[in-house]
């Protein structure tokens, strides 16, 4: 059987984490290829519904990257993100999805190394968790989204 290769969507802010990922590239720091970045202006641009939908669409993990507290390009967007992620962790638990499948990290534009380490660590943790199996093909999430 083929090894499990997790599918991971990363929602990252343009100013810090996306730039950190670029720095990892210019520094040629290797990491596993399971993640793909979606560039947002700020991590606070990410909707909670979008996180849900990502899992529904087949993501085994969702990674969110923002600026360090106090460094947000938009002053305090990352604090908003943090609150939302905390709520999401509780919702995921209620839905029977391991909260560890959703991770928020602060990675600055100068932290290419940190980006690589955290992405690899997240991929490993998702590999340990195995593929996300939604009960009745994600109906519970569909319901959760439609009742919003």
């Amino acid at each position, binding site marked *: 059987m083929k090894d499990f290769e997790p599918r991971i*969507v990363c929602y990252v802010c343009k100013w810090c984490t996306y730039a950190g990922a670029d720095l990892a*590239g210019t520094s040629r720091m290797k990491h596993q290829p399971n993640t793909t970045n979606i560039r947002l202006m700020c991590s606070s641009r990410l909707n909670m519904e979008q996180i849900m939908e990502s899992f529904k669409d087949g993501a085994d993990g969702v990674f969110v990257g923002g600026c360090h507290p*106090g460094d947000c390009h938009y002053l305090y*967007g990352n604090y908003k993100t943090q609150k939302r992620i905390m709520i999401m962790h509780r919702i995921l638990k209620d839905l029977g999805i391991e909260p560890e499948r959703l991770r928020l990290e602060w990675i600055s534009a100068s932290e290419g190394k940190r980006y690589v380490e955290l992405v690899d660590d997240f991929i490993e943790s998702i590999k340990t968790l195995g593929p996300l199996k939604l009960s009745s093909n994600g109906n519970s999430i569909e319901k959760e989204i439609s009742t919003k």
Partner: protein
Amino acid sequence: MKRMGLFICHCGTNIADTVDVEALAKRFESYPGIEISTTYKYMCSHPGQEMIKESIEKYNLDGVIVAACSPTLHEVTFRRVTRASGVNPYQCEMANIREQCSWVHTDNVKATEKAERIIKSIIEKVRLNEDLDPIKVDVKRKALVIGGGIAGIQAALDIADAGYPVILVEKDPSIGGHMAQLSETFPTLDCSQCILTPKMVEVASHPNIELLTYSEVKKVDGYVGNFKVLIEEKPKGVDWDICTGCGECSDVCPISVPSEFERGLGERTAIYTPFPQAVPNKPVIDTDNCLKFKTGACGLCSQQCDADAVTYNDDPNYREEDIGAIVVATGYELYPILNIGEYGAGEIDDVIDGLAFERLLSASGPTGGEIRRPSDGKIVEDVVFIQCAGSRDPEKHKPYCSRICCMYSTKQAMLFKHSVHHGQPYIFYIDIRSGGKGYEEFVERAQREDGVIYIRGKVSKLYRDGDKVKIIGVDTISNKPVEIEADLVVLAMAMVPTPGTDKLANTLKVGTGTNGFLQETHPKLRPLESITSGFFFAGCAQAPKDIPDAVSQASGAASKVVGLFSGEYLQLEPTIATVDEEKCSGCRICISVCPYNARVFDEIKGIARVNEALCESCGACVVACPSGATNQRNLTDEQISIMAKAILSVEEEE
């Protein structure tokens, strides 16, 4: 349906070695909406750009995806290409398959798969992109410079010389800043006053500069090109319009308090001009110490004044100004000696900071340029300079290097030797940092010609020993303990932002970094600009720097302002928040989450609008909006959703 072209770059071998670009191009040939899918060795080169232009024409494209490097690098390039072909530049996006794919992965199959995911998500984004035009706003062509030190002076003069009106606001009664306190400057030993005072006079007499000293910026509203600034002119107690600046008022004033300008080594009266070359050369009344204000008695200065200029008024004057751009040049202060216990915490008279020593060196200083001990006025014979007093000390004080101390202590040791020929200057240092034009040679000269003794090591302790100050340290080169009995100790205190910089930064809505200095957008790409548009930095408010650097930065900031003023209007990024008026319920949650006051309530329609010039595109309000009425242009919820779907739908190769 959108007709899109996909242009995949080899980047020489940078991408093509890891990602199978030809296979990718083939895979996307039949992808919905893709009219042409092709590759080229260097897409950013002239032939590459021409190829895109030709394809746009040939296939009548209205969407362009360039799969190459990071958008940070070449988004501007390819959007220019797109625009040149008559397609809206916001219909061009980059898929980052170099920095975020080929450079970080080694497995060809997996890297190619990842590149496919990245490209697919960008294709889907472009499919839903709309044509956008930069937002145009008018510019008020008048600049505000905050801070009248050498940086503020230079910025004001440069902007004014370019023909634009400038208001220069200074919190003290005179401009000049710390440079006015200096004796001579390294490495040329130019007299500081001789370089500075002509510029101060030029500021005062420049037809395009309005000088507001003893004033502070209290409030800033608006946005780049259109700020409304509230300035407080503090009560001076003297009507400057009729005051002749003769100085007879301070001659008769009976009060004597330590002078700030002389760093406490000299005195001033309650009605005073801070120093003889002050600009404007008019006095203010220090209401905390003036007898008239304290007891109601006295009034000697008023009786003495022939012009009847002494008013004792104590009401500030407020004025509102329309400003297009703001230069912040609020400078530095020295970290207080009080904070350093091991160096006597300010309790030993003969331990002073570097600026106080400048006053002792200055011919116009409290001792007339003779180097006398503050305690008893005896001529100093042995003087010890201690470097990094508070700097480079992350455990207890400031982690950073203050950059100029090695050089000014060297200069001070030299000038001391020129004044007291039989004296001996010692400099305790960690490292001598003499990076700068002519700086290393200057340090060499101090050792060779003036016999300055450099001791590598930190002073562990100093204390009063009779009429001397005993210094205990270690020379870490010879590894021997050092004891010196000095007449005077000069501490090269860390430079810190001027007290109140944090408060001003809040008022202006510009950021500060971990050490309290103003935060530039990017140290290399945009070193002079704040993250909030319309603010520019000059001098030590941004980081410790010497006079040449402060002046260069000031001229740079000024040219940024002039650039901003020279266009017909300002162009701002249009990828901002928008409101569907039908859906907006007027709940105002967006207003509470917006960090820029860009969301405003329309009382008539009962909905929340977006101030397009203020919006910085963070998208926080889009997420906060409970009715889905707010969206972000060219990064809508739908686009984010479909991008994620695209990423997740790429099948693994068996």
